[in-house]
């Protein structure tokens, strides 16, 4: 399978890329890791007339802690988030999630920015970003703006990144005090999209009372879904079994899965209930260790 004809430019600065993108309008697509876009182009689901390759632009790939935030450059490869000891201190969830994204070769190229900007509810990172309450920086010719993750996913393959814009950075607040986070998905085979996946981030005070809870769900809604009622069911509790059971139950009720090759609706709700419970427990245990 070979993509249809297109023109290709690999600019060496972000400004140059933004100008090109502005001039070419929606005839152009931005190429990051390419492991979602190129398969779509090979299947001719996407037929851009021009590809703007970001891989030669310096300064878009980094992991740093600054001003109480973990800042991740949009072109940072999945493998780098998976292997970073600095990231693992506060966010062991990255090692959980990266291991479940496709396979090592894909993670060598796939980028965190591309994973989010693709806007696919079947991708795993969006649920993690919801749980961690991330925000993203988006650059355009007029400057940069920051969008909270709850306002980022618009619909099927549609995000807050507008025509002429490029996602440049992901910002994640460093948790204060004791925290834990974890991700798991049920998949039919290694590297498959999730039948259902759950990301959980918890923070607690010295008495073990939950002060903050973030729960994101993968592939059980047209967009990545925040389990709002589940989060509320945990905050203010000691994360006892009853609170965890209600949070898991709410997540299974509030998601909107559809029947497909991976299973029917009831099965997927069951998976979400089971995995939510498991991930809350895992995050809770990690928080107690901190």
């Amino acid at each position, binding site marked *: 399978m070979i993509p249809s004809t297109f023109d290709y430019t690999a600019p060496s600065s972000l400004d140059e890329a933004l100008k090109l993108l502005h001039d070419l309008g929606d005839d152009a697509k931005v190429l990051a890791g390419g492991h979602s876009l190129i398969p779509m182009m090979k299947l001719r689901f996407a037929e851009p007339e021009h590809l703007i390759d970001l891989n030669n632009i310096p300064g878009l790939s980094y992991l740093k802690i600054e001003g109480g935030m973990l800042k991740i450059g949009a072109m940072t490869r999945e493998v780098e988030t998976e292997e970073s000891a600095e990231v693992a201190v506060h966010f062991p969830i990255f090692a959980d999630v990266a291991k479940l994204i496709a396979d090592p070769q894909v993670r060598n*190229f796939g980028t965190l920015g591309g994973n989010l900007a693709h806007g696919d509810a079947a991708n795993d990172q969006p649920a993690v970003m919801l749980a961690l309450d991330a925000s993203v920086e988006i650059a355009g010719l007029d400057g940069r703006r920051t969008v909270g993750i709850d306002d980022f996913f618009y619909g099927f393959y549609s995000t807050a990144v507008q025509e002429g814009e490029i996602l440049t950075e992901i910002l994640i607040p460093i948790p204060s005090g004791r925290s834990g986070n974890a991700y798991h998905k049920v998949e039919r085979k*290694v590297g498959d999209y999730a039948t259902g996946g759950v990301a959980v981030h918890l923070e607690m005070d010295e008495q073990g009372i939950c002060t903050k809870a973030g729960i994101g769900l993968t592939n059980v809604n047209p967009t990545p879904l925040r389990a709002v009622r589940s989060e509320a069911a945990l905050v203010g509790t000691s994360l006892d079994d009853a609170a965890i059971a209600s949070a898991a139950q709410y997540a299974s009720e509030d998601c909107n899965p559809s029947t497909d090759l991976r299973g029917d609706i009831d099965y997927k709700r069951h998976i979400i209930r089971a995995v939510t419970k498991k991930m809350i427990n895992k995050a809770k245990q990690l928080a107690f260790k901190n």
Partner: protein
Amino acid sequence: MKKEITLKINGEEFTKEVEPRTLLVHFIREDIGMTGTHIGCDTSSCGACTILIDGKSAKSCTILAVQAAGKEITTVEGIATTEGVHPIQEGFKENHGLHCGFCTPGMMLRAIELLEKNPDPTEEEIRWGISGNLCRCTGYNNIVKSIIYAGAKLRGDELPSTEPVFVE
């Protein structure tokens, strides 16, 4: 509109004109004429097209040839030296790590990066490490054995037994 690219494959420099839509695997096989890199599923699932780009294992069916401009590529043709086969090749040979051999170039290139990052992996780490490479003949036991053998060889440790393991 064709683009001129210059890249190194197995240490040798090539300059060619390519269409931007040319996939790297087609470029290597058809424009360069090295057919050791295979095309299996053509959907980045099977790993038969795995090569190294600047030392990182990559699925060359999902990368454009133009993206490889300025890079150093290693294919299966480039891993043996004048001194003999690469330890991973020896591992596959000694442990019957292949049957039809179609997945083998990709398996070996992937294993080379795996062993570089993790010189003494556990069996579980190897199985996760080759989760992007499918074999449809042998099952994976002898492939895992081959990689364990190559790891030992690369570390200079005592080589594990190559005797077949029979499961009762």
